[in-house]
């Protein structure tokens, strides 16, 4: 079986500081990969490289053995990325935000109510996002994952601002996703259950 | 001994939803109070009320038995508040950011290098904040705490984006602060060591 996503000798340099050098790894179906490292180690930089949002100093990222710059459309069909910024518009309601981002991603837009319920936002569907708390905003962004049809998930600190019950639910979702042949690359500074059980770890500090 | 800060029958209503009703509690020197509650329970709203950044629907907050609206200057002399937003300017260097916020707060501006070292930003003093990572930005804001001369600290999710080593250091700082007669009111969704040992908890969901 060919790999889903492959980092090929990635080098990232920011402000003359080498964050990682010739980093290579493979993401296969069923993988749960946690990128580790202290603050400023380069986790966010790596994830943005993987998603094609920025270009590496050297090396390339490959989707199904093809450079992602060459097959943007196919790759993005199969990718869900959630970064430090939630991408939630304060002027739209929770449900409007969700259905717009789903249709951008060509994900499943049926049964949105279910996703809303999963992230415990029932009762807030029609509240404007600017009227919701930090964690509730984050939940609107995460609700996408429940409807996602893409295999590769790249998530930068998905658990920020989420309460304990929410974290547990998300962890369960992660397990389901990899069990169904998906792959997840994520970062987190929190102690997680799943990380201990099933995650591979890539520690950026060990690399240089 | 009189209390440092007292919440007197605070009622908070947002969008016609009562978040808490006639909530009263006292913050004394040496207290470490964790506000708990799920996403959207009203933690941030409560902390902003306590800091005088917004006004309660009913009730009042008292500093040394005086309404804070009547003694703003004295109260703010004795308060350090760090919210969801870090208050760090991307166009200034780490050290410029820190020294400005310290002088605003009339805190100790000697020995700033020490504070920078405490938050592991040595080597990044002269980097512009916009060139630092999410966690490093947050650390610039937190560095203030090491120089703070104020008794009351109000911190909204101070551990967001901070790595594990950083969290441990902060916890130690909290213990030192309350041991020296300070008081801390904070929120966090993470499992903490100190919370189990020495914190009082106020759970917003049990209140209604």
């Amino acid at each position, binding site marked *: 079986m060919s790999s889903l996503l492959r980092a090929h000798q990635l080098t990232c340099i920011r402000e003359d500081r080498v964050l990682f050098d010739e980093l290579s790894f493979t993401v296969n179906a069923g993988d749960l990969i946690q990128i580790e490292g202290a603050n400023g180690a380069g986790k966010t930089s790596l994830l943005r490289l993987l998603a094609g949002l920025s270009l590496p100093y050297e090396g390339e990222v490959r989707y199904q053995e093809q450079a992602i710059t060459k097959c943007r459309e196919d790759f993005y069909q199969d990718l869900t990325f959630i970064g430090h910024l939630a991408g939630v518009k304060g002027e739209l309601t929770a449900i409007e935000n969700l259905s717009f981002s789903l249709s951008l991603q060509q994900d499943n837009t049926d049964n949105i109510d279910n996703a809303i319920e999963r992230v415990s936002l029932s009762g807030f569907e029609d509240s404007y996002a600017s009227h919701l708390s930090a964690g509730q905003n984050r939940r609107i962004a995460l609700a996408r994952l429940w409807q996602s049809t893409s295999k590769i998930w790249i998530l930068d600190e998905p658990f920020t601002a989420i309460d304990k019950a929410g974290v547990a639910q998300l962890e369960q979702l992660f397990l389901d996703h990899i069990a169904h042949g998906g792959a997840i690359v994520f970062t987190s500074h929190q102690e997680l259950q799943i990380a201990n059980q099933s995650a591979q770890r890539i520690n950026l500090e060990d690399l240089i | 001994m009189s209390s440092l800060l007292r919440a007197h029958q605070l009622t908070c*209503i947002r969008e*016609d939803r*009562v978040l808490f009703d006639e909530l009263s509690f006292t913050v004394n020197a040496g207290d470490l109070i964790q506000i708990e509650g799920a996403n959207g329970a009203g933690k941030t709203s409560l902390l902003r009320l306590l800091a005088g950044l917004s*006004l309660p*629907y009913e009730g009042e907050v008292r500093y040394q038995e005086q309404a804070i609206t009547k003694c703003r200057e004295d109260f703010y002399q004795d308060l350090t508040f760090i919210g969801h937003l870090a208050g760090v300017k991307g166009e200034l260097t780490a050290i410029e950011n820190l020294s400005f916020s310290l002088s605003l707060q009339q805190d100790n501006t000697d020995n700033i290098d020490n504070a920078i070292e405490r938050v592991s930003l040595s080597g990044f003093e002269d980097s512009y904040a916009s060139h630092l990572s999410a966690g490093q930005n947050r650390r610039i804001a937190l560095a203030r705490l090491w120089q703070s001369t104020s008794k009351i600290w109000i911190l909204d999710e101070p551990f967001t984006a901070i790595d594990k080593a950083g969290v441990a250091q902060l916890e130690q700082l909290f213990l030192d602060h309350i041991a020296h007669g300070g008081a801390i009111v904070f929120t966090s969704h993470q499992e903490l060591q100190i919370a189990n040992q020495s914190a009082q908890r106020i759970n917003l969901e049990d209140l209604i």
Partner: protein
Amino acid sequence: MWKWLHPYAKPERSYQLASTLLPWFAISSIVLLVIGAVWGLAFAPAELYQKEYYRIIYIHVPSATLSMSVYMAMATAVLISMVWQLKLADAAAAAMAPIGATLTATALITGAIWGAPSWGTSWVWDARLTSYLILLFLYLGVIALHNAFEDKALASRAAGILTLVGVVNIPIIKYSVEWWNTLHQTATISKLSAPSMSSEMLWPLLTNILAFALMIGALTLIRFKNEVLARNAMRPWVRELAAKVGDK
């Protein structure tokens, strides 16, 4: 002042007071409006220099004069709310802004229509007209600010600051006629408002001014009640009222 106001400072009481006052204002203003309109349109004599179109005066002058009074009333309400922390004064100020804006627009439009036959142009950039246009902008600014904030209490405080800053403009509007070389307007005004204005014309004009004032009162009461409801949506008495409507 404070003691006299206080009993009505409770939202529910003042809501009821407004409800009892409203019919008196409404009925008297409707009666006077009808009388004033018929008197002005059909019975007042013709004017010497201008033809029948001078009859526009009976709506132009009341709306023009009163629109500025409404602004001052609004500013007073804001001041009361700031000095005595009286939230109801905020509701009153919020209620008045759209009324003032409508009157200003009315005066502008009727003036423009009047100008067409009497000056041969409906708009000139002279002192009074321009500064009056500024008044409309000020009103629109206050209304926009009221609408921009979700929280009514905050909206009132923000709009209140703007209202007070805008008061500086009122004397400028009043006296700009003298500061700035004006064209047609002053001549026309002095012609009509000089003592030479016959009492047969003056009385219907005064009637109309009174009628407009009463109408403004009635409208303010209606809108004031709405504002009180919106600002006290949490109170049980409002909830009861709402439940009645919800059932229907």
